[in-house]
């Protein structure tokens, strides 16, 4: 998982704006697996499949999967315990 084939959460800014209606790359989230808090921009994003797989940079657990559907983007929550926009 420490290869160079990923980008980071900055790349999801536009999609997440469509879902949440606001800037989310500076939002904070907690990994429910290892308990580390990260800014969305720092998460690892793997884009090789039909959706974007978002992993914790500390423990590589899948936190989110963001899939573009004809109706618009859909966010599947895996191990992301919480997500809080920056104030």
């Amino acid at each position, binding site marked *: 998982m*420490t290869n*160079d*084939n*990923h*980008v*980071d959460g*900055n*790349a999801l*800014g*536009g999609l997440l*704006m469509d879902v949440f209606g606001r*800037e*989310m*790359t*500076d939002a904070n989230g907690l990994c429910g697996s290892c308990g580390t808090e990260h*800014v*969305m*921009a*720092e998460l690892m994003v793997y*884009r090789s499949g039909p959706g974007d797989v978002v992993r914790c940079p500390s423990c590589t657990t899948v936190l989110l999967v963001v899939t573009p559907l004809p109706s618009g983007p859909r966010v599947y929550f895996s191990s992301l315990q919480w997500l809080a926009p*920056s104030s």
Partner: protein
Amino acid sequence: MDRVDETAQVRSLVLDVPEWAGHLPGQHVDVRLTADDGYQAERSYSIATPADGNRITITIERIADGEVSPYLVDELQVGDKLELRGPIGGYFVWQPSDGGPLFLAAGGSGVVPLMAMLRARVGARADIPVKLLVSARTADDVIYSGELGVLGDGQSGVEVIQTLTRAQPPGWSGYRRRVDREMVADVAWPAAGMPRCYACGPTGFVEAVASALVGLGHDPKNIRTERFGPTGG
């Protein structure tokens, strides 16, 4: 729309965007292309300039097998319309009021959002000290090389350090290897000065810079990163 050739593979597009609400240095836009059959492809491109009314400049590297960049670099004509979303990004941003000193590390076209920050600093006539590390394969691959040469002439408080990883011109006095901890230790501001650090480029480049900075004692909260994958774009 206007075009500026930056290198053999890189071109800047100056776009007029109706009702553009302004942006911060470091932000990007998503560009969406739609084929005649309805197929859509979308890519993110950093904005290279600070806010300037309805005008933004994006700088695009041609990725040989890319779905979007060859069209934007080679085929888009003045007067063509583009579908844009943005500005996007609230994390990888800096403006002169955020202060410094500033350490910027650019791998390849990762220099684009950092150039927006540098241009904002110049536009604000701020005296914030800046060190910019630019990594490119060859001298011909350095984007904005003319402007960086002027900025880094020693008069403006901006120091530009270059490393050419693949080939160097005769008499080259800069670095000639990929970025490593020793290089970051040599060129970055000392951690004690609490500099703001921004690294953008291919994922391996950004990881090398960020881990070196953390190892040198920089507060991770002062290190902001943007990774664009193995080759970029």
